[in-house]
């Protein structure tokens, strides 16, 4: 094989590769669009009026997740399944955002941490690599960490809206999450960097809880809830 032949063979391979990437990019753009829409829907829970509408907002978000499912099944068809990690970088970011949104919806509905299986199910993808397009564990964890900072914001805003019990529940939840993350041996990678931000969320929520308890607002809220 001559040098020229060899290089034109490689060039053929590279341009085929670029075509696949181009296709993936288009689908990922749609996914990002839908993710933004879901975020807009969920953002309204930070409004004082939004607190009463949490179930309806969640229902609406769940509807939008159907669109996500179709986009993702389209994405699956764009490349051979065993080459997931070859193109991983293209959808890594959006998949983390979507995991965050799924986790946020599940938290608002049931105040529980979304499991990896649930998150994958909401997105219409698999959990284990062998079965096809899956949710990578690091992406799942990154999504959960994004949710933690959203919850610290929610704690602040729920006080403003007059809901004094929610911050305490959020605090318990985040503390449990924090202990969970402390079990992991993270390498010096993007996930680790993101995890390092968790302590600030924990701190912020603790401050909110402190403010509430020093003013007796948490007790007041409890008796109110009991009545």
């Amino acid at each position, binding site marked *: 094989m001559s*040098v020229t032949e060899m290089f034109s063979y*490689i060039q053929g391979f590279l341009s085929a590769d670029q075509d696949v990437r181009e296709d993936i990019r288009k689908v990922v753009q749609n996914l990002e669009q839908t993710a933004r829409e879901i975020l807009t829907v969920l953002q309204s829970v930070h409004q004082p009026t939004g607190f009463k509408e949490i179930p309806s907002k969640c229902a609406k978000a769940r509807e939008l997740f159907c669109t996500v499912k179709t986009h993702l099944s389209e994405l699956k068809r764009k490349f051979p399944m065993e080459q997931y990690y070859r193109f991983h970088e293209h959808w890594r970011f959006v998949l983390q955002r979507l995991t965050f949104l799924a986790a946020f919806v599940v938290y608002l509905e049931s105040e529980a941490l979304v499991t990896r299986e649930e998150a994958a199910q909401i997105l219409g993808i698999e959990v284990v690599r062998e079965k096809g397009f899956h949710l990578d564990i690091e992406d799942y964890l990154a999504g959960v960490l994004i949710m933690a900072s959203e919850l610290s914001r929610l704690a602040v805003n729920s006080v403003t809206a007059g809901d004094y019990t929610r911050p305490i529940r959020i605090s318990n939840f985040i503390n449990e999450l924090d*202990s*969970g993350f*402390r079990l992991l041996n993270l390498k010096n990678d993007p996930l680790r960097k993101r995890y390092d931000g968790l*302590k600030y969320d924990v701190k912020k929520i603790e401050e909110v809880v402190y403010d509430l308890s020093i003013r007796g607002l948490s007790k007041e809220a409890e008796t109110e809830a009991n009545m």
Partner: protein
Amino acid sequence: MNKREGGGCCSKQADSIRDANVNPSSPIIAAFKVFQQELDTKHDKHERLVKISRDVTIESKRTIFLLHRVTSVPDAEEILNEADVKLDAVRQKIGLIADELRGEDIYQFHKAFTPGIQEYVEAVSFQHFIRHRSLISLEEINARLVFMRTEKADPEAPADATPGAYVLTFHVTPSDYLLGVADLTGELMRLCISSVGNGDIDTPFQLSQFLRQIHDGFSFIGNTGPYEVSKKLHTLRQSLGKVEDACYTLRVRGSEIPKHMLADVFSSRTTMMDPEEGVV
């Protein structure tokens, strides 16, 4: 590992309160224990691959050094055979990588072993060039990276295909091949300079022709390739420039100066060229 640098005085107390609130058998903790295992397994595999890749790099570099000696000894064949033995050892190591990657997505761990593979491509193509004066193809490289394993996973002779044995292949990706070939050009430049030093007049001309072909190939690929390729293209131009200058000197001065003095002329010229390197 202090997680609350900003926490101040009451951090210890808060920690104990926090841990008291946490039920070790809660679903979240149980889930994270599973994640811990999964991440650790993944990181361990990554580390093992990095280690093998380092060994592959070192051994390939040594092979390249060995191959540079062909210009100074009379019997090139002996050195080439010695390089063969060394490369066989490197291939065994790549077999270990293939073992680790069995059933995995090779691109998931690609970053861990790509430096080693590029170095191997460089070594193997360098040897191929010295022997055949041509560019080794990707298929030829991959064809040699086929390993036979029995179920117990100990290496066996390729001929021994007993039932229960399986074939393990390792595929060098086109971009790794490309980057390895880009590195090869640097070695060829060195080979060219040192062969002039030994009074070999033919090799530089062959090399300049070969390098020009490779350079044209890379220009053909241009920026469709991965990012690193465009970076290496710059170095390739420098190497090509040096080789072309060498051929020029040989042609111009070769007709005037007696052959035994040519080496001296040449070496003084290259030292003169070196400071310009950064400017070009």
